[in-house]
């Protein structure tokens, strides 16, 4: 599954994206198993410049669009549709930090079994308490306190997200330390609960 820079099947130029050749504009027959990084043509790493990701997505999106394969043979039409769908899924996953972190963790945690329920000490009890408090705030319609809680939770979520990059970097530098990936899993678990809580708080007007 490693992307060892395959060549275009038409002109043999090095492929940037596994789906499409920018040199000769040929759709590529792609393997069933690809990772989202090779779909978009980025190294497998957490750090991605969002402007570059956006640009690459737009380029590929345009090239793969089924509308441009209207007169092409059936097989190619189908390929462009499938490629577009995969492209969209890959893009959605890589552009959002938590989805990207979760996906990358899944790719990299091959040598260890992660505890998928791990949470920081006391976190679950705190979440339960906050959910109860939220029930009360929603019942009383206290907009000020609701807004304060929303801001609090968003900040905590941001703090967690800010940790993804340094942890992945640490893992790259110390791949033998199995605790680092577990820390990431714990972060992602915590983020999920915070997100659920936030979903219940109505957005500020």
């Amino acid at each position, binding site marked *: 599954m490693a992307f060892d820079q395959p060549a275009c099947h038409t002109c043999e130029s090095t492929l940037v994206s596994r789906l499409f050749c920018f040199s000769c504009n040929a759709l590529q027959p792609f393997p069933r198993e690809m990772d989202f990084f090779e779909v978009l043509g980025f190294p497998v790493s957490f750090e991605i410049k969002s402007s570059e990701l956006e640009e690459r997505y737009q380029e590929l999106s345009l090239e793969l669009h089924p509308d441009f394969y209207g007169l092409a043979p059936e097989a190619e039409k189908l390929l462009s549709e499938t490629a577009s769908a995969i492209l969209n899924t890959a893009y959605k996953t890589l552009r959002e930090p938590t989805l990207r972190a979760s996906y990358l963790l899944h790719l990299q945690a091959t040598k260890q079994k992660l505890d*998928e329920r791990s*949470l920081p000490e006391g976190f*679950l009890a705190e*979440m*339960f308490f906050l959910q109860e408090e939220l029930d009360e705030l929603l019942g009383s319609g206290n907009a000020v306190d609701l807004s304060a809680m929303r801001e609090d939770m968003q900040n905590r979520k941001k703090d967690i997200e800010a940790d993804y990059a340094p942890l992945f970097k640490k893992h790259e530098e110390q791949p033998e330390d199995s605790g680092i990936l577990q820390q990431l899993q714990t972060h992602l678990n915590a983020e*999920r*609960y915070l997100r*659920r809580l936030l979903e219940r708080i109505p957005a500020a007007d």
Partner: protein
Amino acid sequence: MAYSEKVIDHYSEPRNVGSLDKSDLNVGTGLVGAPECGDVMKLQIQVDPETKEIVDAKFKTFGCGSAIASSSLATEWVKGKSIDEAMSIQNTEIVEELSLPPVKIHCSVLAEDAIKAAISDYKSRNEN
């Protein structure tokens, strides 16, 4: 998502929502969570110190209808059972009773975990 009639019943009229006194030695409290969906479930049991039978149970769940129904059902089922009997409640029985679809099976697992956590808490606080 189509909920079964029983899930809808438990969701609209949940049995045993509430709290027991956490500090009471005859009470066991289980707090469990499912990170895949962020559900949080608290289940408490009141144990008769003489007969060791569970005489009351309460729950509070923040989650989807299936999670609420699973924990509501769990509190119904543990009442009148001995601790050992309650320990042997399987999530598969909850799945069957509520006709839970595959994507909601984890809710029943959470309810089974909550029962076990409550019992474990009771036991650890009553080790003489």
